[in-house]
């Protein structure tokens, strides 16, 4: 079953020019896919088109069978409840505890109060931070903060977890931990699409890789045998593993 479908999608910004053109691919249930490519190649644009922060200029994007071009504001809100979104900069609310940050995602979607606490406890355990629920983000390491952000993304039981450079602000050890966590989440059945510069991660696994360059899909490992992967072509200075 196709959860996300791009068909000849183009995205052009009034001032920023063409960010994406003729992009076509599908993401299926339970799949894990990397989006890779140099900065400005269109990775984040693809993710924004999935969670409907942006709408396509041409072509169409379907998420859970709904065309994002035609989705109403209400439909966008409803679709987002089934997407988990994780960012490089965590985007946690500094004035709330880890538990409150996770519960926030349930509260604002109208989850009954008595269901919130057990669900928060479940995802905190799932990300390995059951004992850190009452900590504030500033009291946590970068890796822990990203785990809380992932827990928040997971708490609504999403079909797809969208991760935009989730390890970009983390050191090597934290990166490995987050990556393992994303694999576990995927193994449990949630599809994951992850934008990353980290070629080491990509090399270590056999997951699907969609490579972008100048807004075009230049390689998709689902359609191309592994021997032809052009990953090595990305210059080393395009890695982004700056520790925090």
């Amino acid at each position, binding site marked *: 079953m196709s959860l996300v479908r791009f068909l000849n999608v183009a995205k052009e910004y009034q001032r920023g020019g063409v960010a994406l053109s003729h992009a076509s691919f599908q993401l299926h249930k339970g799949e894990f896919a990397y989006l890779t490519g140099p900065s400005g190649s269109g990775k984040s644009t693809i993710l924004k088109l999935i*969670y409907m922060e942006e709408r396509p200029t041409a072509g169409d994007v379907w998420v859970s069978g709904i065309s994002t071009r035609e989705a109403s504001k209400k439909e966008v809100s409803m679709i*987002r409840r089934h997407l988990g*979104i994780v960012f490089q900069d965590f*985007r946690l609310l500094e004035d709330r505890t880890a538990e409150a940050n996770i519960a*926030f*995602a349930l509260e*604002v979607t109208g989850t009954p109060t008595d269901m919130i606490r057990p669900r928060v406890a479940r995802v905190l355990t799932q990300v390995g931070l059951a004992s850190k629920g009452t900590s504030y983000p500033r009291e946590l390491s970068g890796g822990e903060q990203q785990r809380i952000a992932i827990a928040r993304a997971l708490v609504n039981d999403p079909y797809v977890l969208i991760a935009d450079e989730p390890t970009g602000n983390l050191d090597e050890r934290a990166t490995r931990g987050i990556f393992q966590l994303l694999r576990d989440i995927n193994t449990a059945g949630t599809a994951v699409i992850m934008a990353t510069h980290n070629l080491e991660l990509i090399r270590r696994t056999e997951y699907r890789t969609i490579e972008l360059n100048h807004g075009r899909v230049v390689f998709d490992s689902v359609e191309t045998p592994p021997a032809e992967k052009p990953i090595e072509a990305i210059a080393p200075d395009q890695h982004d593993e700056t520790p925090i």
Partner: protein
Amino acid sequence: MMALREAFASFRRAPLLSALGVITIAFSLFAFGLFGLVAVNIRDALQSIEDRVEIRAFIADGTPVEASSAAMGDIHAFPEVLSVTYVSQDDALVRARKELGEFSDVFEPGVLPASLDVKLKPGYRDPTTVMAVANRIKSYDFVDDVRYGEDWVAKLYRLRTIATLVGTGLGLAFAAVAVIIIGATIRIMVMARAEEIAIMRLVGATNGFIRMPFVLEGFIQGVMGGLLALGLTWATSTAISHSFMRTAFFDPTLATLGVVGGALIGLFGSTFAVGRQLRRL
């Protein structure tokens, strides 16, 4: 329920920012309240002067009491007339001596004429109406002369018109400034929470759901700011009454309107600011 809890929680999470909002609303409304206090006192002063507008019809010597009594009934039936009082020659002497104080002995008994003192209803005290009623009274044969202070009635009416126009203009200006300042403060407060709004949207909250806590918070701040402004204005009014001169304070209806005004400014200010923020995201 969650919206109300969040609205109160934001006071706890960001007490300084919330206090800034309440204080800004309070001081903006306080400035408006001070102006309102001046306007209310000027209005009361003019009203008390206006209450003294009366027509005095002097009765010719030798007029039978029956004639003046019958005329009193006629005049009292005029739609503009509030009351008609017969002042005999003796009453006129007593009144004149009382008003003149140390010069009270200048009048001899029988010097002052009897009169009919006619008070007009509120709304009929403008120069044109006063003159028209005076002319009608003057048409009675036994009326020697009619006085109603033409000059000061005209001046008083002009003063009231000017005070109303200036008061309305200044009032609107003060209100506009208050709305602009309060609106800007609320916008800053909403912008400070832009990330929270962005996260709410990303996790699937509807715009209506996102708006509600901010709107409630704006309303609560408006009520608190309005009450604080009312308290400050009352304290100022009381201090002036004790130190300089007796001043009137707002009646309960005006005081309630002030607080309701603060609440509405808070409500609409935050609704507008959140709407802008949601369009930006």
